[in-house]
């Protein structure tokens, strides 16, 4: 989480797509249990992140991604 601006952008996407309050989007938050996101929510989030960060995420990379922190690492590794 070195780059605060990137995380803020990531967070804004999550708030917009998942319709959750800002204080719930923390690195340890789990998409399913804590953010009440279903599989379609996650697809939507990935598409929003791809657009916002101008990156491409392959389906296979999403396996095992369960928390906000893991997802942010996946995206930030591509920047």
């Amino acid at each position: 989480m070195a780059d605060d601006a990137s995380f803020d952008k990531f967070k804004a996407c999550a708030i917009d797509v998942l319709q959750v309050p800002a204080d719930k989007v923390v690195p340890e938050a789990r998409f399913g249990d804590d953010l009440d996101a279903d599989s379609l929510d996650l697809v939507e989030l990935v598409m929003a992140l791809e657009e916002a960060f101008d990156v491409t995420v392959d389906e296979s990379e999403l396996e095992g991604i369960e928390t906000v922190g893991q997802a942010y690492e996946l995206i930030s590794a591509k920047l």
Partner: protein
Amino acid sequence: MGEQRGALGGAVNGSSLPTSAPTSPGRVVLVTGGSRGIGLGCARRFQALGDKVAVTYCTAPPTELAGPERDSVDLLPVRCDVRDPEQVDAAFAAVEEAFGPVEVLVANAGVTKDTLLLRMSEEAWAEVLDTDLTGVYRVVRRGLGPMVRAHRGRIVLMSSVVAFFGSPGQVNYGAAKAGLVGLARSLAREVGSRGITVNVVAPGVVDTDMIASLGEQRVEQLLALVPLGRRASPADVAGAVAFLASDDAAYITGAVLPVDGGLAMGM
């Protein structure tokens, strides 16, 4: 421009979901294959309801764009071969630019290439599947994102009585049209939580160029088996499509609605 994206976004979560139709009139409707036949009949119906209607065409655009009502918005013709994903994307982009995101999608474009299976080439098979089944996948895939984000939308797929009743010489067409039922039902399960409905209409003998190509003798044979004893007009089919896109059909998804005069009842 009638864009109400996310109007229900906050409210839709969990299990108590309103299956919300876009509010008629003034919805943005896209009908593929809308330059003639059933597609044009559907476009005219939505136009008469006061919706903003775009039609895709592959060969020639509709000749008359003005609607039946004095205050209706002209049809927006967009060239699109559904076999080409780039043309599908460009067609949606053109509609979004003119009217806003598509709220009601009628995937109607289809072709036939009839011959008995023993004589059916790989090409004849592939061409019909590519347009009638994969083309629907392409169109629905492109149109779905904005509906998911808006938490509402209506998708109607144009199948055929041939999917259930069979028709000699139409192994390719029958397979594609039956495939649409499976597509619709899985998709209905994927997007039901977003208030989006996905339904199928299965017309029978309709007064169109496609039916005329079967030949008068075959048409008469079929009509002898139709309890209502006549062929359908495109408007008969349009009525069913308009219903599935209306508020009255809010709780209907994954359904197949035959409009065949009873030809394949029970199948």
